[in-house]
């Protein structure tokens, strides 16, 4: 500490320094904040998200609301069958992914793999299928196989392999190897070891993971459907093309309800399976994704596999498999309630999977012909063509980045108060917390793409609609994450001390809540930027600005070599922004 109580030159005692002494770290933070503020202003200007632009379009927004309300369900028989088709698509797609992911995950787990070659090949499959956006796959498959749910099923099936495989293999790596050795020592073969020692230890968690992925695929199916892969998304695209906005709103509401209901059902199903098992965090949950994001940024683990397995390691094997209750001498388990319930659920699941393939008429022959259709399309992508339309692509790429910056900053500005109100330990009133939480839940149920369609209709084609859609969409994610982060922080003591000195809620918010949770809030902001860069690359497909427009255009004009070039450029942008936010995180924390 510097001596701050030295007398001043004129002899009068100085009461000391009342300004913070200069601190290089703070100065660096201030300059980062200044750069972000400047970038935000440029982004606002570039995307046309200026206050006057908004006020200028108030008429148009009001006009659209007039045309949307009330929602029109006159076409309801179509919607019912579209919803059914969506559900069958999601079930079929997820089950394809599961079938593919099980062998991949076994070979990609260090403790069950057969050798370094199999391990690395499977890790590679996981990395690639996670990296390729399902939307790009859907675009290819729709062109190759024709419009309809089959393309969606295949896109979903392949793009889910990476995520499912990764989490499945993480679970395998956590199992108790003693059991494996015991079974192996009894002379069991590889498959026998798997079914007797590995599977029982991971099965409940695997089922939970599959149910989570089902949720994600349902949400994603709207986007896939929109490019022609069937289901409710295709229906949305149809009514949007006809500009019948009362029907657009109707379908948007159907999607919202569908997403929320399936989320509830899958939650109940997971609870029913999990019962006495150790509760573990949903690895797809926002919270877990944010933490994985944070760890990746910190660079504590280079490989993603470590990031996941390191965070959620619990003593599952020790607790979960306790001995079954003592039974009198009999050789069958008997049909007690839990067993009946499990078998009923399993049979229902199998029936659902079989009917999904039957109803969608997606059999093995279709699969083989599909591969024959797809191969020429993939071949046509090589070599990538970076040269044609380079200037335009570059412009759109920059636009994508500006959109993400503008939406992140604006979204955080809106989500921060909602998050604070939604945190039970920082809210102004219990009811305010309930309202804020409900708001975030409802927004979260609405896919970005649907919000983007509505804003494109309201303010016209271009990045403005995209920024508005992402900003509104961020309330669902950032609002929830901020509220969670605040609830995880202990503010009780500080809050009471401040209350005792006669402060208002707003004063407590600025002096205690925000400064105390600032690192977490910044973390959420960086995470949102990451999410928005990805989202901004695809919402161009509905005309909401960004590189997505060129992506779809290259398909339409059959310039698939340009498509590949665009995909590579998107990768580089995502990779670059990840590095950037890692750097910012290091400076701040």
């Amino acid at each position, binding site marked *: 500490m510097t001596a701050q*109580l030295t007398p001043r030159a004129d002899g009068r005692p100085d009461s*000391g320094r009342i300004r913070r002494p200069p601190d290089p770290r703070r100065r660096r933070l201030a300059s980062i904040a200044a750069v972000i503020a400047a970038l935000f202003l440029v982004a606002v200007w570039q995307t046309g998200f200026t206050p006057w632009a908004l006020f200028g379009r108030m008429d148009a927004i009001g006009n659209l609301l007039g045309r949307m309300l009330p929602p029109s369900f006159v076409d309801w028989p179509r919607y019912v069958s579209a919803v059914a088709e969506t559900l069958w698509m999601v079930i079929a797609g997820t089950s394809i992914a599961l079938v593919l992911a099980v062998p991949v995950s076994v070979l990609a787990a260090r403790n069950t793999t057969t050798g370094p070659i199999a391990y690395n090949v499977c890790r590679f499959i996981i990395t690639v299928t996670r990296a390729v956006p399902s939307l790009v796959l859907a675009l290819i498959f729709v062109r190759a196989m024709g419009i309809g749910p089959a393309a969606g099923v295949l896109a979903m099936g392949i793009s889910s392999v990476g995520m499912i495989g990764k989490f499945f293999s993480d679970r395998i790596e956590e199992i108790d190897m003693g059991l494996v050795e015991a079974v192996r020592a009894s002379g069991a073969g590889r498959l026998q070891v798997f079914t007797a020692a590995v599977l029982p230890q991971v099965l409940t968690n695997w089922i939970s993971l599959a149910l989570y992925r089902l949720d994600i695929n349902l949400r994603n199916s709207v986007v896939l459907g929109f490019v022609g892969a069937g289901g409710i998304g295709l229906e949305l695209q149809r009514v949007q093309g006809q500009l019948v906005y009362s029907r657009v709103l109707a379908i948007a509401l159907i999607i919202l309800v569908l997403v929320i209901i399936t989320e509830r059902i899958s939650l109940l199903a997971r609870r029913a399976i999990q019962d006495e098992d150790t509760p573990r965090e949903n690895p797809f949950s926002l919270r877990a994704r944010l933490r994985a994001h944070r760890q990746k940024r910190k660079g504590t683990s280079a490989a993603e596999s470590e990031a996941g397995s390191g965070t959620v390691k619990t003593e599952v094997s020790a607790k979960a498999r306790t001995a079954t209750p003592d039974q009198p001498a009999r050789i069958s388990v008997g049909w007690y309630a839990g067993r009946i319930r499990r078998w009923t659920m399993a049979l229902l699941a199998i029936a659902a999977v079989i009917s999904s393939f039957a109803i969608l008429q997606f059999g093995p022959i279709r699969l083989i012909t599909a591969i024959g259709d797809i191969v020429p399309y993939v071949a046509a992508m090589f070599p990538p063509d970076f040269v044609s339309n380079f200037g335009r692509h570059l412009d759109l790429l920059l636009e994508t980045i500006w959109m993400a910056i503008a939406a992140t900053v604006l979204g955080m500005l809106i989500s921060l108060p909602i998050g604070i109100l939604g945190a039970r330990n920082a809210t102004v009133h219990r009811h305010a917390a309930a309202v804020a939480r409900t708001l975030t839940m409802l927004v979260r149920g609405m896919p970005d793409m649907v919000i983007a369609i509505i804003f494109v209709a309201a303010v016209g084609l271009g990045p403005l609609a995209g920024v508005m859609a992402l900003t509104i969409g961020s309330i669902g994610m950032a609002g929830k994450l901020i509220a969670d982060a605040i609830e995880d922080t202990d503010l009780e003591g500080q809050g*009471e001390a*401040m209350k005792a*000195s006669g402060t208002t809620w707003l004063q407590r*918010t600025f*002096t205690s809540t925000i400064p105390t949770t*600032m690192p977490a809030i910044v973390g959420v902001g960086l995470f949102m930027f990451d999410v928005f860069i990805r989202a901004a690359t695809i919402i161009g497909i509905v005309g909401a600005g960004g590189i997505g427009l060129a992506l779809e255009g290259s398909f339409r004009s059959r310039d698939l070599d340009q498509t590949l070039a665009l995909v590579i450029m998107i990768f580089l942008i995502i990779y670059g922004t990840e590095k950037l936010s890692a750097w910012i995180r290091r400076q701040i924390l």
Partner: protein
Amino acid sequence: MPSTTDRNSRQTDSRVGPENEFAVRIRNVTKEFTGGAVRALNDITLDVPTGQRLVLMGLSGSGKSTTLRLINALAEPTRGEVEVLGQNPSGLSSRELRQFRRQIGFVFQHFNLVGRASALENVLVGALGGLRGPRYGIMTYPDSLRREALRQLERVGLADKAFQRASTLSGGQQQRVGIARALLQRPKIVLADEPVASLDPESSRQIMDLLFEVCDQDGLTVICNLHQMEIALGWADRMVGLRSGEIILDRDARTLTPEDVSEIYAQAQPQAAS
């Protein structure tokens, strides 16, 4: 700066006037929690004259903290009446309540500082109740207040740590910041809830010396919950013992012996065991 104790106590007297002979009057107060399932205080009556240094002793759960929380209206009595500085807090609007609380400094067992903020900023929190609108960072407080806050930090011997994060200070230092924060409120009453229970014996002595010294300088009424009888006997004017929500001892502290005090705890032993 206060120069002598005399002048200050005179000032205090003239300021409060005759109706405030008592800083705190608690009349037949009962406090129940969870809809009557738990009775924290049972028909307590306690008058604290202005300028008195009162120590409340008793086991955990005897009602000490509840008493303090009733005085600054962090809790409301189930029955009975609390009058503090001539006001009954239960009838106040939220704005009046904030003004009421500004006159009462509170020192907490766990310091309750904003860990990520500097020591000076934490002291400034004491002035927040007297300001309008939210503040973020020390530069948003007026110069005069910052100077005053630094003076209070000087009084508790921490001026050199003014810009250090509160979470990096030792427990004793954090409690000094807590005291400076309470003093910046320019309170008439200081309530201290087990101020040294989280500290080692040496820091405890220093903190209690400091707390009573500064309160004496400013002529404040002090009500302090304590466990350590030797510390209490050194400082208090008056000692009140609580057990199971009832007052079982109320004596001039100067005539009190350690044996008397240990009875507060000793009597409770059989009950605690059952």
